[in-house]
C-alpha cells in the first residue's frame, strides 16, 4: 500500500506540475476553478480515488484520498475533488447508485425546504464550485438524518461567490426545483458527510503547509541580509521551526485520522485533524510571512496563493472552534476514565469508540 501511495503522490505531483503551473493558478482564480487540471484528473482516474471501482470510481481508501488532497493543496489546484469524490461520490455509492456527473459538488443545506411534490425551494450559501457543476448534491438535515437530492446544475440559479483564493463558493437559489434523484440517509450518514468535509479541508491544508515550509526553508537559506543568509539569525530560525512544527502536526493529524483501511471517519480523529490543521494554518501563515518579509505579500510569489487558501480552508468545513466544542462535548460525555484511552488511541478507531 505504501508503494501505491508513493506512486499516486509522484504521479499526481508530475501531473499537477503540468496542469497547475503559476499561470494555471492565476487563470483558475478568474474562472473560479482549474478546469484543465480537473479534466486530466478525470481522464487519469485520480478524480475517482476514494470511490469504489464497483461504483465507477478508482478505489482506494481515505489514506489515498488524503494523498490526493495533499497534492492538490500543495499545488494550489482549484478542483472539486473533495466534493465530487469524497462527498457526492461516497453518498451515491452508499445508496447503491452511480454518480453520473462530470463535475459533482455537494453541500449540507439546512435552509432548503422540500415540498409535497418533492421540489426544493430556498437558498444554499457558499456552495463550492457550483457554477461549474453539472450535478449539485444537496443534503437537507432533519431530525432523523437527511434527505439527499441530486440537482442538475442548470436547474438552479447561481450567484458567483468566492473564497480568499478566488475559488468558487457560489450562492445557489432553488425556486421549486425537481431533483434528478433523491434518497434518505440516516444520522450516521449525515455525520459522515460533515466529518468528511472537515477532513478534506484538513488534508488540503496539510498539503499546502508542506509547500509553505519548503518555500520558507528555501527563501531563508537564500536571502542574504547583513552578510549572511537570514536563516542563520535566531529570530528567523524560530519562524522556520514553528512552520515546520505546525506542518508536522497538521500532516500527522490528517494521516492518522485516515490510517488503516477504514471506510468511515470517527469524530475524535476527524475533529482533531480539522482542529490541528486549522490552527496550523493560522500559526504557520504568520510565521512563514514574517520569515519572508515583503515578497510574501505579493500576488506573484507562491506563498501568497497558498496563504489565501489556508485562510479559507481553516474555516471551511467547520472552524477549529466549532470542532473543538463538538469534540470537547463528546469527551466530557464519555467521562473521566475515557480521556486517556481516547488520547492514546493512536490510529485505532476501535479504541476510540470504546473510550
Amino acid at each position, binding site marked *: 500500500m505504501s508503494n501505491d501511495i508513493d506512486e499516486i503522490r509522484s504521479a499526481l505531483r508530475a501531473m499537477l506540475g503540468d496542469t497547475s503551473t503559476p499561470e494555471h493558478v492565476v487563470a483558475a482564480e478568474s474562472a473560479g476553478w482549474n478546469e484543465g487540471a480537473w479534466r486530466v484528473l478525470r481522464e487519469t482516474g485520480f478524480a475517482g480515488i476514494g470511490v469504489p471501482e464497483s461504483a465507477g470510481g478508482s478505489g482506494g481508501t481515505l489514506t489515498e484520498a488524503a494523498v490526493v488532497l495533499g497534492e492538490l493543496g500543495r499545488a494550489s489546484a482549484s478542483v472539486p475533488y473533495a466534493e465530487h469524490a469524497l462527498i457526492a461520490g461516497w453518498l451515491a455509492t452508499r445508496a447503491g447508485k452511480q454518480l453520473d456527473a462530470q463535475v459533482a459538488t455537494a453541500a449540507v443545506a439546512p435552509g432548503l425546504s422540500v415540498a409535497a411534490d418533492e421540489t426544493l425551494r430556498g437558498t444554499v450559501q457558499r456552495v463550492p464550485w457550483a457554477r461549474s457543476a453539472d450535478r449539485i448534491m444537496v443534503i437537507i438535515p432533519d431530525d432523523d438524518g437527511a434527505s439527499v437530492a441530486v440537482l442538475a446544475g442548470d436547474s438552479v440559479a447561481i450567484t458567483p*461567490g468566492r*473564497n480568499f483564493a478566488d475559488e468558487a463558493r457560489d450562492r445557489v437559489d432553488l425556486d421549486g426545483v425537481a431533483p434528478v434523484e433523491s434518497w434518505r440517509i440516516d444520522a450516521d450518514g449525515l455525520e459522515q458527510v460533515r466529518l468528511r468535509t472537515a477532513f478534506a479541508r484538513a488534508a488540503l491544508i496539510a498539503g499546502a503547509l508542506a509547500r509553505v515550509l519548503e518555500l520558507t526553508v528555501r527563501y531563508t537559506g537564500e536571502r542574504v541580509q547583513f552578510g549572511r543568509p537570514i536563516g542563520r539569525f535566531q529570530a528567523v530560525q524560530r519562524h522556520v521551526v514553528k512552520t515546520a512544527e505546525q506542518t508536522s502536526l497538521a500532516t500527522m493529524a490528517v494521516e492518522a485520522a485516515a490510517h488503516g483501511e477504514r471506510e468511515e471517519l470517527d469524530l475524535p480523529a476527524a475533529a482533531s485533524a480539522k482542529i490541528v490543521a486549522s490552527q496550523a494554518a493560522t500559526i504557520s501563515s504568520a510565521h512563514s510571512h*514574517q520569515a519572508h*518579509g*515583503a515578497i510574501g*505579500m505579493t*500576488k506573484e510569489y507562491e506563498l501568497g496563493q497558498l496563504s489565501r487558501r489556508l*485562510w479559507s480552508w481553516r474555516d471551511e468545513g467547520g472552524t477549529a472552534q466549532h470542532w473543538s466544542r463538538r469534540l470537547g462535548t463528546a469527551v466530557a460525555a464519555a467521562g473521566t476514565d475515557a480521556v486517556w484511552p481516547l488520547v492514546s488511541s493512536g490510529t485505532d478507531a476501535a479504541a476510540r469508540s470504546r473510550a
Partner: protein
Amino acid sequence: MQFAPTELSASEQQLRDDVREFLDAELPDDHVPGLGMAAGHDPEFSRKLAARGWLGMAIPREYGGHDRTAVDRFIVTEELLARGAPLGAHFAADRQSAPTILRFGSEEQRRRFIPKIVAGELWFSLGMSEPDSGSDLSSVRTAAKKVDGGWLLNGTKIWTSNAHRNHYFAVLCRTSPLGEDRHQGLSQLLVDLHDENVEIRPIPFLDGTHHFNEVHLDDVFVPDDMVLGEPGSGWQQVTSELAYERSGPDRFMSTFGLLKYFVDTYRDELDAQQARIVGEVTARYWTVRQLSLAVARIIDAGGAPAVESALVKDIGTKFEQDVIELIRDGVDGEVDPDGETLLETLLARAIVSGPAFTLRGGTTEILRSVASKGLRA
C-alpha cells in the same frame, strides 16, 4: 522606559471635537473604512484636511505649517484612522517626508517642497527598499554617479507604495563607492516620479490590489540641489527617519474598525465569549493608545524616545494582528471576501493584509534589537 499617562488639554480636546465634526460632515454615509495607512488615496479629502490646518501640523509656519505639537498631530491622525478615512494621498508625505526635509534639507528644498506637502498638493513615496536590500538598508545597490550639475541615478526600488499616484520619492542610494564603513557614502535624492527615465511597474498585492510598485531608475538625471542635505549623510537621515514613523497611531489602529463593527453586528446578542473578546480588545486598545500618546508627549518635551518608540511599534503592530484573530474567533465562520456587512468586508481585508503590519517600517526582528540595546543603556 519613560511612559507617563497624560491628559488632553482643553484646546486638544477642542481639536479632537473639530476633527470629529469634520469627519461626520465629510465622510459620506456609505463610506467604507480603510485599514489604517492602506486606506483610500483621495486628493480632495487631503486638500480639505489641509485647508483645516491638519496637515503639516508640527511644521513651522514659515514653511506653511502650523507650529503645533506632536500630540496635536497624534489627535488628528487617530481620528482619521478610527474612521478609516482616505488619508493615502498625504500620509507618507505628512508623516515622513516633510519632517525629513525640514530637518535635513536645504533652505531651498524646504521652501520648494514643504508648503506644497502641507497644502495636500504634493505627495511623496519612500524609496528605501531594494530587491536585495530589505532590513539591511546599508546594502542598497542603487547608485548615483556625479555628472556636471547633478547625478545620474541607476537602480531599482521596490515595495514603493503609491508610486503610481504620487509626485516624488526620496531615493536612498550610494553616492560614493562602498568602502569599509558600509554606512558611509549613502545619500537621499529627491526624485520626480514623472521623470521619463523613471519606470513604475505595479507589484500586485496578495489579493490582486495595487499598492506596491517596483520603480526602475535608468540614468535619471538628478540636479545637485535635489540631494537631501549633504551628500553622504543618507544613513544618518534614514535611521533617524525610521524613528519618526515608529510609534504613531498608524502602528496600532489599522484594524480598529473590526472592534467597532463587531460591536455593531453582535451587540444585541453578545454571548459570553464575544463579550470577553470585546472587553479584552477594548482594554488593550485603551492602554496601547496611552503608550503611543505618551511618546508624542515626550517628543513635544524635546525628548528622544527611541526605545519607547520601538517598544510601542512592536506592541502596536502585533496588537493589530491579534485583533484580527480575536475578532475572527468571535465571528467563528467562513469569512466571505465579498461579505455584505462592513464587519465582513473589513475582516476579510484585514486577514489578507495583516502579515504586512509587522513588516512595514522595519521588521519586528530589527526593532527588538533596537529596543533590547536601549533597555541596557
